[in-house]
């Protein structure tokens, strides 16, 4: 990625090179750049980042889930942030196009980013965008969307709601070597929605893997309140009363200080839908050490009164 900072001599050189009108000085371009999500818009935040040998088990699970969640967020945003550091290659009314650029990794492929602004409402900023790939030398119809997103502002250009969809399987079907990336090897698609228009901010992430993968889906739901407290719901693995592994859901919540609680629940009675059973609970303080620990199949320690939730 090229530097977006211009020194005075760089400006003079650019100006002299132009020998006519040229540049990227544009308020309209700002709208396109502001509509793109930043890492901070989607990243899960938790005050505590320490881990100890005696940290609560479910605290460690929550931290692990947050790390996985944020890794996906960083990967997604890095795809999009390419646009923020570059001037559009072409401007056409409400559309901006960056590229096509040759792919460093796959010389037979090229990619581009397209952004379109909706003119339906002058008060609202709504953008749709696509990251597309195609084999070099093909026509416009050969573009395949690898990532599709949209954004609608609420209140200001930088606060609103958005969606990002990573369409790995469609790109794979077009021949693009998606599976060379270990992170995408078994991915069918990934859907992210985010809302930073008003507290609590929320991000949901649904990951759908190929049928052959070990796991079929992953789901994250993150909420962030203004005071720093938050919650995260994510998939985890539990065990039945007989010790058999079973898909479960961890619901963690924490205060701004980091002290929190997590409950692992699972449906132990498939014949009675929505009858969740608590498999375990951990409460922890700011030192991440459990103040209360309950396991359906194990001993209980501490007192439930120490839990903040």
């Amino acid at each position, binding site marked *: 990625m090229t530097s*977006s*900072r*211009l020194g*005075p001599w760089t*400006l*003079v050189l*650019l*100006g002299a090179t*132009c020998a*006519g*009108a*040229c*540049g*990227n*000085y*544009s*308020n*309209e*371009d*700002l*709208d396109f*750049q*502001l509509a793109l999500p*930043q890492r901070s818009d989607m990243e899960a935040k938790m005050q505590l980042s320490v881990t100890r040998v005696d940290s609560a088990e479910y605290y460690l699970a929550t931290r692990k889930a947050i790390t996985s969640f944020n890794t996906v967020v960083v990967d997604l945003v890095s795809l999009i942030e390419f646009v*923020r*550091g*570059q*001037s559009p290659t072409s*401007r056409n009314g409400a559309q901006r196009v960056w590229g096509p650029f040759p792919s460093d990794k796959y010389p037979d492929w090229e990619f581009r980013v397209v952004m379109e602004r909706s003119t339906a409402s002058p*008060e*609202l*900023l709504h953008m749709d965008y696509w990251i597309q790939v195609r084999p070099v030398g093909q026509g416009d119809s050969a573009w395949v969307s690898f990532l599709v997103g949209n954004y609608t*502002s609420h*209140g*200001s*250009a*930088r606060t609103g709601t958005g969606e990002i969809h990573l369409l790995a399987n469609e790109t794979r079907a077009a021949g693009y070597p998606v599976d060379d990336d270990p992170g995408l090897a078994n991915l069918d698609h990934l859907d992210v929605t985010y809302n930073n228009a008003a507290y609590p901010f929320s991000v949901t992430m649904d990951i759908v893997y190929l049928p052959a993968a070990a796991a079929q889906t992953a789901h994250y739901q993150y909420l962030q309140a203004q005071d720093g407290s938050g919650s995260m719901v994510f998939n985890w693995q539990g065990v039945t009363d007989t010790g058999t592994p079973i898909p479960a859901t961890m619901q963690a919540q924490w205060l701004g200080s980091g002290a929190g609680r997590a409950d692992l629940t699972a449906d132990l009675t498939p014949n009675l839908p929505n009858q969740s059973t608590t498999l375990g609970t951990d409460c922890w303080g700011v030192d991440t050490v459990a103040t209360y620990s309950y396991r359906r199949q194990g001993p209980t320690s501490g007192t439930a009164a120490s839990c903040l939730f």
Partner: protein
Amino acid sequence: MTPSQTIARAGPLLAALALATGPASAAAQHRFALVAGNDRGGADTRPLRYAAEDARKVSAVLTQLGGVAQDDVALLLNQSSGEFWRALGGLESRIAQARQRGERTLLVLYYSGHAKDGELRLGETRVRLDDVKSRLLGGQADIRIGVFDSCHAGAVNRTKGARRAPAFAIEAAGSEEARGLVMLSSASADEDAQESDEIGGSYFSHYLVSGLRGDADRSRDRRVTLSEAYAYAYARTVADTAESAAGAQHPTFSYDLKGNADLVLTDFASRSEGIYVPGDAPAGIYYFVDGNGFIAAEIQKPAGGDRQLALPAGRYQVRRRLADRLRIGEIRIASGQLFTLDEARLRDAPFSDDPVKGAQREESARVSLALGGAVQSFFDGPTRDGLFPPTGMLGLDFELRDFFRRGWIWGLDFASGGTRGEVDRYGTLLPFRFSELTAGTTLAAEWRFGEGRLSASLGLRLAFVVMSRKFDDTTVPDQFFATFTPGLVGGLRYRLSRSLSAFGRGRVHYLLYNVDENRSLGYWELCAGVAYDF
């Protein structure tokens, strides 16, 4: 015989007559001088270029060689008539005091500048020639010498039997001290006094100074008398102006003297500081150019004869002009020493290397450098508020005036500036630092008023602008825009002194903005500053 009847027309060699009379010594008198030079002559006259410089030269030669003490010289450069009369009155008072002490006195009144309709023009003010004459006629100094280097200055001699003659001499029968009035003018009553870029001064004053520095010393007694100086200045002025567009210029004289001794104006018998050109040096005219590029003096050296010139210590360029080239060299006259010029110190040079200031340029062409501040703003409100904010700038201008054509200005300008701005995009405020660099070239016509003090200009300008902004939010990339913008420029310029001017300019420019879409924008600039003419 009345004093006015003592005027005698004489041949070129008659100046030698003064030699026999035992000229009055410069040191025997208490000498005073009022030396005035004014480049400006008010409305309907064009500014002169060298009048003040001529006055400086005359003042210098009088104090260095003419026996006039520094405290006894009133040097008025570009001063008004009020200053002129005040200075003259002050000198007259001191002359009266000197006479009371029993001293013999001499007053030299020198004026270089415009004259018209019987008046000396000192800027916007006037001095009637008749008033000056009356003042000199009735003056208390034993000898009063008036020298007027100005157009139609011969009018000063009209009623006193003025002569256009190569020399004059005093009929002398002894060494009786002279008393009375002598008036010299650089041109006849119907002639223009001419300046020359080649010599960096008016012809008459230049030759008067060169003569007084020694080249007029035909008697070789190392003293230059009034008649020698006049004869020399007359001959050289007529010769040099004979082929000029304005025609030959004839200096005139008149005097009303009692006594029979010629007047020694400069005496360098006891002063060895200067330049000596030996007899075996090539014949020709040798010019000695000072550090400012002006000819300090010249020598007309005959074949086989030597010449000596009294010049103050310093560095000089020596120039001798041949038919196809120059011979030039540099000399340094040490304090109190006579420098003997060796032809071997000179080298051949093309005419383009002429060290004389102004020798190669058109009349009045000048280069100026200006520093100024400017404010720039776009006419369109939304553009001004969120795209290109109003900006302050500092600039440097380089101008050639009257270079390609009289009344034309060609300039190059560079400016840089910046300000803080803010853009609102759907409620998100993005503060930024706006910067701008411009380089422009202007071609303008200039009109001058009030002796050239005030001038107005109107012209075309083409500028190249580079505008950029750096956002406080570092996630937003820097932006820039560069383009050529044509425009109109108008300005006023007021000369504060010979070299310094204050100016104000207004510019209106067209700018095609084409990043998002093609938009025709306009902006204005107001600039003010000071300019220095080289």
